[in-house]
């Protein structure tokens, strides 16, 4: 019954994206094109990141936490942010409100991320006879990632698309964006440096993603008031 298990893990990993699209007004305004464009931008970004990683990073034999290497990885991670900026600001979208734009971009971004990073291990691994909890945890991680991507897209749209922001909130916005952008480095530090096990790391990711989502929602609504 292991194809069954693959099916279960697949709907855990990719289901929320589809549900998000159909549940929110995104489906009514037909923002699929935006999401697809964001996904393509993600693929391009991933390619650039790969080339940079291959060029600048040393291959270490041990699985320990090397601060210098992690710093390099974090810097390369900012290419992600650049890609998101490109997707939000530079691509021409049809007339959709900013509210929906960031959601669509975030959704496309997270979907591409899940497919790229999680589909192949799932296909190869979850259909085997041996049962592990890994794939279910990976699915939960995909969910956390979705929330994080949407928050990052929200903060990104606040930073680059909204011109009139209350002055006091600007540093908070940048700080939150910074935290969300460096999430990959934080999780890898937890896994390697502190030696946390996978379930603990996933729990942490879920928790922080909800917290960050809440904060960005508050920031977004706070910034929305002056324009009203």
């Amino acid at each position, binding site marked *: *019954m292991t194809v*069954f*298990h693959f*099916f*279960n893990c697949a*709907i*855990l990993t990719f*289901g*929320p994206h589809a*549900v*998000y699209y*159909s*549940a*929110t*007004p995104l489906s009514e305004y037909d923002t699929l094109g935006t999401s697809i464009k964001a996904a393509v931008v993600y693929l391009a970004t991933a390619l650039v990141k790969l080339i940079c990683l291959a060029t600048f990073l040393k291959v270490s034999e041990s699985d320990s936490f090397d601060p210098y290497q992690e710093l390099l990885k974090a810097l390369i991670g900012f290419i992600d942010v650049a890609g998101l900026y490109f997707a939000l600001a530079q691509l021409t979208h049809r007339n959709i409100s900013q509210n929906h734009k960031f959601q669509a971009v975030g959704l496309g971004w997270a979907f591409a991320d899940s497919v790229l990073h999680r589909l192949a291990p799932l296909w190869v691994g979850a259909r*085997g*006879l*041996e*049962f592990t909890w890994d794939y*279910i945890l990976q699915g939960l991680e995909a969910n956390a990632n979705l929330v994080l991507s949407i928050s990052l897209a929200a903060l990104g749209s606040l930073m680059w698309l909204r011109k009139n922001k209350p002055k006091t909130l600007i540093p908070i916005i940048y700080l939150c964006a910074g935290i969300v952008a460096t999430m990959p480095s934080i999780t890898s530090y937890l896994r390697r440096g502190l030696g946390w096990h996978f379930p603990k790391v996933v729990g942490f990711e879920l928790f922080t993603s909800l917290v960050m989502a809440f904060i960005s929602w508050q920031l977004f609504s706070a910034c929305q008031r002056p324009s009203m």
Partner: protein
Amino acid sequence: MKNAFQFLTTKFVKFVIFCANFVAEYIAESKPLGGLLFLLPQIFNFENNGEAGSNRLDGTKELLKNVLAELEQILIHTNLPYPVYFAFEDDNINAVLADIKKSDITGQPATATTGGYKFVVSAPEPKSVVSPSITNIQGWLAGLKGGDDAHQLPTIAIVASYDTFGAAPALSVGSDSNGSGVVALLEVARLFSLLYSNPKTRGQYNLLFGLTSGGPYNYNGTRKWLRSFDQRLRESIDYAICIDSIGSWENELWIHVSKPPENAYIKQIMEDFSSVAEELGFNVNLKHKKINISNPRVAWEHEQFSRLRVTAATLSELSAARELLEKTGGLIDSRHFVDEKAIIRSVKLVAESLARHIYGHQGKNIQIFADNSNLAVNPYYVRAWLDVLSQTPRVAPFFSKDDPFVMALKKELEDHTDEVYVQREALDGMFTFYDSTRAKLNIYQVASVTFDLLLLLVLGSYLIVLFSFLVITTRGLDDLISLFRRPPSRKVKTA
């Protein structure tokens, strides 16, 4: 072909040390099993060279040996409808076994986290071995020709069968039966080749060394080998000494004959051997067993010689003849139970006795192969060959055409003798052999179907909750309710 079966828990090999009867009864009950897996102690693993199990008392080793021997005989002679696998204990499989025992005791069905295991053995479909063959290797060491024809000199033959048989062919290394005999033969050949290399010390006897195959199957190879001799050679053989299992004895050896002890040649052999044995400090006893020509069962190798009227005897530590397929180098015959010192003493016995006969030193206390001389028995040679033999399963039908081990034996005999001849014959069809002797066992920890269904239910409800949550927060509760109700029919308006 994959054979997946539910592991038969608790009862087995941990407890078999006390109840081989239990196993016999269990097998006789003919339960419908997917397969049977025996976990043997590491001491029987020939790939494990270390002193595994040296912490056990010798008493339990003996008990274990006897019980496993009985078990092997049960398996060989019972008709089992399911496959039987043998594996060796190690920490991983012991952990799995402990887990399974726990859940078996509590009667819990397998869930994801408590010991649901699936055993899959992947082995090719066994096919019957087409025309199994036996390979006899003979080495001829010519004596000092007084006249013109070497064949006018009398010949002494030294023979040992080198193949084995067991319930698990890939584990049948037969260190004692008859690895010890092969080692002894090679060492005797080496010593006499040293003696015969110098014409001044070359005896006036030809020496014929024979490594025969087909031993467990009524010495079929020996029979074919003898029938390939021409009449003159057969008549020139004074006597033949067959060496069979001389690796784990302490104080006495047996010489088994089928000609009556009053026979002149037999008397001569006994005199030579017992005088040397006395000097070396142990006993050699004579045992006479008549052969019945109409009975196809050949219990000792010398009987094949006797059936062709050639005087022969078998030197062995066994006091009684075996049954068919018993003690033929199976599961329990591992290196740990063989003492190389016993082999060295046997080599000394055979070499000195032959030398007394060849050089006519009967009655004189002369030691040709004394320790610390050029002709001393080389313990390193003995140990090296014994180790090699103890790591090579040697069931005859599974030897390939130019098997490296058989070629190695041939090369070794070439080093020690003048002429080597290899004879390949078909094994007489008493048994049919099926290949596929090794397989890989994979043990998977699996989750039950109920777990998968449960997970599906949980995920389904999660997605539904997520959906509702998103609809409520972004579009409002009314929208959610409206999804489940059709809008009121517009027909009313137009009517």
